[in-house]
């Protein structure tokens, strides 16, 4: 089943909290957290920072985000073999990634794309959408 589109209004509703949470986690100014800045290339975030951000977002929004949730969501119902081969996204996997990370400029998707480099694409907007999806899942679960 296709996911309901996430509107800009929904994103902007959660962005201030995401922005403050990320600034706290990264030890930077709130103003440095632009919606479309690359967290790794623009703000020097490391894997521990992603763990920290998700941990803080869970508490700030009272949601649960399983580790590896983004990759899991991107893959969706595709088999691992369809999604990646030896750590490199397949053509179908890359197409699915582009669709899922629709907020990312197309020029930033490299070919070949390594699975462990996907996080380099993440922006604050990626995490806003992660929060919104978690909120929707929580509401659906009642």
């Amino acid at each position, binding site marked *: 089943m296709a996911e309901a589109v996430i509107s800009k209004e929904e994103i902007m509703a959660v962005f201030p909290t995401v922005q403050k949470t990320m600034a*706290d986690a990264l030890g930077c100014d709130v103003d440095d957290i632009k919606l479309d800045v690359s967290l790794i290339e623009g703000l020097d975030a490391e894997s*521990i920072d992603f763990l920290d951000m998700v941990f803080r977002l869970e508490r700030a929004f009272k949601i649960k985000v399983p580790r590896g949730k983004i990759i899991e969501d991107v893959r969706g119902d595709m088999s691992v073999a369809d999604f990646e081969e030896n750590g490199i996204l397949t053509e179908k996997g890359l197409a699915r990634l582009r669709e899922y990370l629709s907020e990312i400029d197309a020029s930033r998707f490299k070919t070949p794309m390594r699975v462990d480099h996907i996080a380099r694409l993440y922006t604050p907007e990626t995490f806003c959408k992660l929060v919104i999806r978690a909120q929707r899942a929580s509401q659906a679960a009642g």
Partner: protein
Amino acid sequence: MVLDRASATKASPTGRFAAFSFVDRITKIEGVTRVSGLYTIPPTVSLFPVSLVAEAIGQLAAWVAMSSVKFTHRPVAALAGDTRMHRMPKPGDMLELIVEIESCDADSIQYKGCALVDGQLVLELQDTLGSMLDIHAFDAPAALAADFEVLKTVGRAPGAFSGVPQPVLHDIPTDRANRLQATLAVPEHAAFFEDHFPSRPVYPATLLLYAQQQLAQRLAEVQARCSVRVCRITNVKVRAFTAPGASLVLSAELATPSEDDAEPILIKVGASADGRTIAGAKMFFAPDSGECA
């Protein structure tokens, strides 16, 4: 496998499961949600930093985490959101350790915990998260499983910990009154490396935190012009492992507490290796006795 206390001690008197192990016995395990344990600070040690009480709580959580994933992964220090120190433990004290695990899987463990002495709270840990890594890089899974059995049954003989050396800091001149910097030479050899970890020696994050606390305390006392004590440590983030023999640059910088902070003095601390930040935290201090003159 069940060992009696004498053979458990005989099997590992100094190195692994002794030199840097701070759980003597696991007294109660309630699924992967709550676990209790005991640790007696050897009366012979001259120094038992309060950060090692946090280490003890973390190790208790680690045992249950490792067991829950059948010793395929082990947690390592990553984040500690809020640690509150209520009183200083002293040699000979028996710590009652309690951990509540909020979530645990092969990626990470989230937990909170506390340590008490004679029913009095010594230290509380909240919002703590450890990254779970492949256990083979650190220790032998079968040996850890056997140690876990010992802890759950007869317990380890207390007193194996022989202490840690006081960190030696060498000041780096700085022209800012609100900042201190120093180098920390991580020892090339130390007994704790045999236990932390047997297959990959890593400088314990709690010892790094203790060294950072020494620097921060000096700055806090200069600012307060009186003796101060650390009350709370927040935003602990460990970014990288520190190997034996590493040279670290520690920094401590005075910051302004927020209106929500009860403690009057906030020092931000950092540690870097080869220019890369490897750890950071916020340390809150208050006058040791009432108010400063």
